[in-house]
């Protein structure tokens, strides 16, 4: 009967699917890896912006030039600098409003010193609004996740 063949074909298709393995990634036990999707984050993934630590000095590479502040489409970065006794510019606070950040990466592209990168941090949910204003979160170069949650920038060092 020509009428029912399409319906029977669709029912057999779904029946085939019923015997396959499921495709879902069981978060939080699995993150981005299942038999179907490639494991791990891609290297270029744009997560939350963080400051990069200079491995020799142990301080942030950021010098407080402010190019990233102007490059951000929404004005999400807030930078507060001052001049210390030696006449060097010192960063007092570098605050990123994660709740309004677009994760577009313009700050990363704009920075001339490679001090701001979009890290791989994407688990940003929180219960309090004030914890979505990040202050100086460091990212070790080459790491997948940031080293420490909040660190005060030692003043007086470039």
């Amino acid at each position, binding site marked *: 009967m020509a009428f029912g063949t399409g319906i029977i074909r*669709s029912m057999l298709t779904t029946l085939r699917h019923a015997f396959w393995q499921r495709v879902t990634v069981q978060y939080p036990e699995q993150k981005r890896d299942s038999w179907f999707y490639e494991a791990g984050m891609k290297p270029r993934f*744009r997560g939350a912006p963080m400051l990069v630590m200079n491995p020799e000095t142990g301080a942030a590479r950021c010098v407080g030039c402010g190019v990233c502040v102007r490059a951000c489409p929404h004005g999400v970065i807030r930078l507060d600098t001052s001049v210390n006794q030696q006449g060097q510019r010192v960063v007092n606070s570098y605050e990123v409003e994660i709740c309004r950040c677009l994760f577009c*990466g313009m700050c990363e592209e704009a920075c001339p010193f490679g001090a701001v990168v979009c890290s791989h941090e994407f688990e940003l949910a929180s219960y309090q609004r004030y914890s979505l204003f990040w202050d100086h979160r460091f990212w070790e170069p080459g790491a997948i996740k940031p080293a420490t949650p909040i660190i005060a920038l030692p003043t007086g060092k470039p």
Partner: protein
Amino acid sequence: MINALRTETFEINMGPQHPSTHGVFRMVLTLDGETVVDVVPKMGYLHRGIEKLAEENTYVQGVTFTDRMDYLSPMTGNFPFVLAVEKLAGIEVPLRAQYLRIIAAELQRIASHLASIGFLGNDLGTWYSPLMYTLREREIILDLFEMLCGARMTPTYMRPGGVSQDLPEGFKDRCLLFFEKNMPRIMGEVPALLTDNEIVQMRLKNVGVLPAEKAIACSVSGPSLRGSGVKFDIRKAVPYNAYDQFEFDIPTGTKGDNFDRFVVRYEEIKQSMRIVRQALANLPAGPIMAPGITRNLRAPAGSEAFARTEASRGELSVYMASDGGVAPYRCKLRSPSFINLTALREMLLGSRVADVVVTLGTLDIVLGEVDR
């Protein structure tokens, strides 16, 4: 005998919160029993002021807003904006960047049509099954985008003067593997589950008919226009950005009913795969960004430009005018979904309540684009 009964029409609000209006979209339907007598679409629930924001941000920052207009196909949303900026400032884009843009846009078109086909299954009443199958392949395309530029939904990949990043290692192989291994499965399942299913054909055929003259009169574009039989595709009619170097067909329908629009989208996936294969095979070497482009790009004062592109849903065009500053003086975004919605009333008069949802599904609107 029916006409001798005095009946009354009643108005029903297919309101902003509805599982099937593809976003926050409101329609005031006037129904006579189950037949639709009048449709008044009311939009604006997702208006975010993108055109105003674009006037206050530089050209490069403005690209981020175009990602969020049509959130189901952001790469094609980036396209006309950067083309308009380049026309405005007189920038020549390197050929490699043009090819990369085409690869991104066509992959995005495949992803968008897969999502559209899947969501049409939802509107028809299959409880998410075809959607799960098409989204499985769309996930791989989004993974490819993540490999390419770092984000799945808001890539901000195309920039004025070129693209932001080059193809990474393994992208070409991954993409071709995807076409060999994964796409044939879904391209075989969509006919089995939807196109050849008699119930789907009963629901979609001869419903929501939009004749060709009406379609042209309402400025409908994209697969909705091609479903009505008009063979018009901006990539072939007004070629932009090296599309004239590629070989592809334009699928058209015949009657302009829901079924034709649905099949046109399915066939366009195949044509997009053709284009991506050709682009990957013939990718020229060279720079990916025109020289001398800074973040504070300025265009000559008093210039204006209009860029037309074929986005996943139709003709997406940008009109830009500059007054010499770092931000455009005016940026007008002509979105296809908004204009296609004006033809909704024509298509729906005389059909039933169940057809309203299905016709809206085949018209394939995205509210981010409609309301901007």
